[in-house]
């Protein structure tokens, strides 16, 4: 269950020490934008040691530098042996960008004696070309488990202003969700960047959920409880899902074919949705 993903700078020992306790379902340890060029080496080693020694219980994603930079291979060489759950390649614009990284990961996995496809990919799509090629990227490799929209760089590439309303990224968001669902992978939304504006965050997260995003990322630990709440099933949703299965069981026992609940016929999409809700509820188990 990935409702929230929290970006954390890879060069801050105290943050890495506490990364597991900040409430996010996934932590994204960043070697890219949060780390100055002069600190790339130390951040890489710090993140490697943190993963090796801190026994994180949350899903660990490492954001590596772009394939057109001189750092991404060194990033992978240090990080892959400590087996992160996922690698987030950056500025991914086409299937080839995914393939290059996937190939290097395969080489390193073999070297480390890991099974093929142990480490998954969550490409960060943050260019106009990337959004245009979203489906191609999402289906580029069996390693791709999800795709991720980076709104800030995307709007810069689009030469438009990033606004709180987010009209300028509406098409990109919709396109990303469509591509991900068509490719059968998850899809994650860009962070809300106003750290103090919780009402705006909640609205934005609800909107993203409404579009079909699997979850949302954040740059602030303070946003995590709100994101988790938005992307968790509500009590009513859980009860409805339980009622769906109870009704089906009852109908089966009575030998009925077609059944309805609260005046609506229970069809395949309703059952699928109910199953997803119960799976999500089970994954959270009362936690926040």
């Amino acid at each position, binding site marked *: 269950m990935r409702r929230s993903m929290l970006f954390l700078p890879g060069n801050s020992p105290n943050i890495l*020490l*506490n990364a*597991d*306790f*900040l*409430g996010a379902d996934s932590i994204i340890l960043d070697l890219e934008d949060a780390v100055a060029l002069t600190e790339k080496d130390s951040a890489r080693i710090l993140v490697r040691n943190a993963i090796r020694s*801190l026994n994180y219980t949350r899903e660990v994603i490492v954001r590596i530098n772009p394939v057109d930079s001189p750092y991404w291979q060194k990033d992978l060489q240090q990080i892959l042996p400590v087996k992160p759950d996922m690698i987030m390649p950056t500025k991914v614009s086409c299937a080839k960008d995914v393939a290059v990284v996937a190939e290097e990961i395969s080489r390193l996995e073999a070297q480390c004696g890991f099974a093929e496809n142990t480490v998954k990919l969550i490409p960060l799509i943050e260019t106009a070309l990337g959004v245009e090629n979203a489906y191609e990227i999402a289906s580029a490799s069996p390693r791709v488990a999800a795709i991720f929209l980076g709104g800030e760089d995307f709007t810069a590439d689009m030469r438009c202003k990033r606004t709180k309303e987010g009209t300028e990224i509406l098409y990109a968001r919709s396109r990303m969700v469509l591509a991900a669902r068509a490719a059968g992978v998850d899809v994650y939304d860009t962070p809300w960047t106003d750290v103090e504006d919780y009402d705006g965050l909640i609205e934005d997260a609800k909107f993203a959920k409404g579009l079909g995003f699997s979850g949302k990322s954040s740059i*602030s*630990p*303070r946003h995590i*409880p709100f994101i988790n709440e938005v992307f968790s099933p509500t009590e009513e949703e859980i009860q409805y899902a339980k009622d769906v299965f109870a009704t089906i069981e009852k109908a089966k026992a009575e030998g009925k074919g077609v059944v309805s609940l609260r005046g609506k016929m229970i069809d395949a999409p309703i059952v699928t949705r109910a199953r997803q809700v119960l799976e999500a509820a089970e994954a959270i*188990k*009362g*936690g*926040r």
Partner: protein
Amino acid sequence: MSKIIASIKEAIRQSGLSDGMTISFHHHLRNGDMVAVMVLDAIAELGIKDVNVNISSVFDTHGPMIEHIQNGVITGIETDYMGGVVGRAVSEGILNKPVTFRTHGGRPSDIISGKSPIDVAFIAAPAADCMGNCTGKVGKSACGSLGYAFADAMYAKTSIVITDNLVDYPLMDYSIAENYIDYVVCVDKIGEPSGIVSGTTKITKDPVGLVIADYAARAIEASGLLKDGFSFQTGAGGASLAAAKYLKDIMMKQGVKGSYGLGGITSYMVDMLNSGCFEALYDVQCFDLDAVRSIRENPKHMEVTAAHYASPTAKSSAVDSLDVVILGATEIDTQFNVNVHTDSNGYIMGGSGGHSDTAAGAKMAMIVAPLSRARLPIVVDQVLCKSTPGDTIDVLVTQCGIAVNPRRGELAERFRQAGLPVRDICELKDMAQRLNGTPKKPQLSDRVVANVLYRDGTLLDTIHGVPAK
């Protein structure tokens, strides 16, 4: 008739203060207090020596006390809290006689019972009239409650009010009444407003502190104590304030109507009162300007004396009816004993204040602390100084999980059912050590520089000196 005396020196002469006597001060002007040093300077000029100072808290603004220790004016200190400046000097052995640490409840108890007699009490007062009726609620140096000063004023042989705001008789809404006061001195300034109420008691932005606060609020929710009539105290630390904010949200959502909020009062507690979370605030000390304004204007926000707040020998005190208190710690050990007196190097930098009083009284005493600070584990095998006994502490909340005192198994079960991460305190200690290593114990001297008295007057622990570097 008037009790006004022209100068502090003259008031000291009239009081009959002489070598070997005990004087007292309160700490409501906190780090802005100018009165204690003003009086000590006057005592020094009068050539009086060997004075025992009973002051409810020593702040860093009282640094000049060090000089008066060196020149033989001060030979003894009794207090409930001592900041790092004087604390370091005491730890390095500046006083021949060990400091006596009491609690905020133990101090008035011992003053009232006569165990800790005061010859002359100096009461800094932000407003007073010529007969000595005084209050902290108004004036340019307003500090709100004068809770800690009542026992001093009422039980000292001589009580002198020192004010910078002499008002016409009779002062309305007085705190301490004229029948206890011998003399009144008016000076230009009793305190520096920026230090009296700093206005910086703000909710933490530290993500780790917020996680701790969230767990603390949810633990209170799960404890079974959060229902109509709920009573609550919290400290002014960033995580404690954040916990109060989260708790308020829960109370508002569930429509819980609490009975009273207690203690040192901040704007966050005032906000809870105004939002209907409590029927009343019992205020022994104001921490910020909002609290000062509220105690002046809102009849539901009431001043209480230190004895009413926490005295263990009173017929009852407000801590006895407390449901939950949130407290801090510099260290906590696997027996749940808490240190709030010394830092990791053994230097004095704090004190119990109301820590052990509220822990003893509350149905659930909760410590909030990160697992480590600046790479020093907070959860340890044994605390350097036992400030509050572990058998009065129920819960430790860290960012890595909640440890419940084994005496309170039912709380652990409630927390687990609420989905909170309950862990054994030894497990938390192991985590802290694994992450930070085990620091070497500081090298302390054989000499005892302070005795820590529990609220009932028994010796709880001794603090040893630190060799001067």
